[in-house]
């Protein structure tokens, strides 16, 4: 049984807080798409994509967040940095739930 999207995001927030992240924004939208969670990890700004999957049969976060999704997230993140005049170093993390078990992938992908 898999979690619903909203539940997964809620749990991911709790998990990130435990890991020492400071949540900055949730479901931040631009015309390119949406970022589930924006947080600060020390001096780094982190854009987090949350994925709920019932099993690992379809691969890890790289498979769940395909190149098109990565581009949309990156474009949205770029907009966020511009609008907020943020000059911090940025990173993309992915949090997945396989069933109820969460995994956090720090620095899950980069812009090629």
């Amino acid at each position, binding site marked *: 049984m898999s979690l619903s999207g909203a539940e997964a995001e809620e749990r991911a927030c709790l998990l990130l807080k435990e890991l020492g992240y400071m949540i900055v924004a949730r479901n931040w939208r631009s015309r390119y798409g949406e970022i589930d969670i924006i947080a600060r990890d020390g001096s780094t700004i982190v854009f987090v994509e949350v994925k709920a999957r019932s099993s690992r049969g379809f691969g890890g976060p790289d498979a769940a967040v395909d190149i098109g999704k990565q581009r949309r997230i990156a474009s949205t993140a770029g907009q966020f940095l511009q609008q907020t005049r943020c*000059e911090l*170093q*940025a990173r993309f993390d992915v949090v997945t739930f396989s069933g109820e078990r969460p995994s956090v992938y720090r620095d899950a992908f980069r*812009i090629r």
Partner: protein
Amino acid sequence: MFARLTSGAVVGIDARLIEVQCDIAGGLPTFQIVGLPEKEVSESRERIRSAIKNSGFSFPAGRITANLAPADVRKAGVGYDLPIALAILIASEQLPGVSEQRPIVGELALNGDVRGISGVLPLALEALDRGLSGVIVPVENAAEAALIDGVKAYPIKTLSDAAAFLGGDIEIEAQPCDVAHLLAGTAEAIRHDLADIRGQAQAKRALEIAAAGGHNLLLTGPPGAGKSLLARSLPELLPPLSFEEALEVTRVYSIAGLLERGGSLVVRRPFRAPHHTISYAGMVGGGHGIPGPGEISLSHHGVLFLDELPEYDRRVLETLRQPLEDRTILLSRAGISVRYPASFTLVAAMNPCPCGFLGDTIKPCTCSMHDVRRYRKRLSGPFLDRIDLFVEVPRLPVEDLFGRRRSANSDTVRDAVEAARRVQWERMREDDGRFSNAELDSEGVRAHCALGEEGATLLKRAVARFGLSARGHVRVLRVARTIADLDRAEHIEAAHVAEALRYRGDRSAPGG
């Protein structure tokens, strides 16, 4: 944060110092390498990222830009992996900001190991020229870099070693180098001894003359007569490489990436025998990006052996003419031209006709005159003009094949050759950049190859009788000079001219 280190690029035979700059700015995580990188340099991003992670460091977030300056030199090769990785570590404050002038090169494996690269020797020479105290190189290349006196070579095994060394946490001892010990290797046992080849006294004599005067040689004979064996014995008849010569050879091999793993000085004279299907670029040098050295440069200070000479592509043979004359090759391509040394002795071998048995004592030749003419016409006159000695290598008579008589061995011949070479160096000390009789042009011949009355009469008669051309005439004089030098005679005598006339080559092959 910004970091700056030094690395190097090989451009032709020389190296240039390259500044590796790295900047990490805020923003989305990207990693770019700029400064005219070739494909393999751009690809290094993935190696660098893995190597940094697997060496216990973290790969920084943010906009990473690595710049290789000056931006107008094409950056090829994998040697930038290590300096870029170190610059990233400094820029991300995982390493203290050091001021490091010494050039750093090395390829990274994904686990952080540092792998050997080509072209380290030229880099060490450039470091010496720039007055730098040392170079930081992969452990595989350290022996090679250590050859340069005055530059310390620090061998590096892994990225973490390099980081600790730059940060001053560990000491790395410079690679020691014992040049005298390396050169002693040249006096090794002879592997292709003349004494092991049966009969062929005239061909052996011609080899001795070729070795003594640096003359190019064409052997003509039926299959199985021993042409290849004879050619193979030539490098060992030549005097051992001096340190300077060995360094020049090593430099070419370093650039070509042909040094043995962990090897340093090339101490044996090169012997290159490219197959007759060789391409133009393979022979004189070329390839994508910065042109690399070809067979003629790999034969520098050694012997280039072309077996089945008429089978080579005509265009490939014709391109040899200029390097045979200039002893160097200039490769010009769009936006870049590089010069490689190419001072080699050419030994060529061919059959007298397509079937191989023209003039043989036992087997009849099955070729028509037309076939023979066409076969020989594949060699142009100007090309054959560069060959001083034409020698027939006939089938061995039965008594030679089973006979017990052994000829002089290579050791003895080499002593005679060395003595003759010394005489030439002495005589040509004032001539710029010329070291052997083979390099004498018509002016040099006039200066150094004066004939006595008897010799002059003999040569005059030969010119008339054999229809010797002006070039053929100069060639005979050059060879006679070498024969006289082998004889320790100050003046060329009639006997020397007579012997030289035997190699003039209007019988065994066209030309002359």
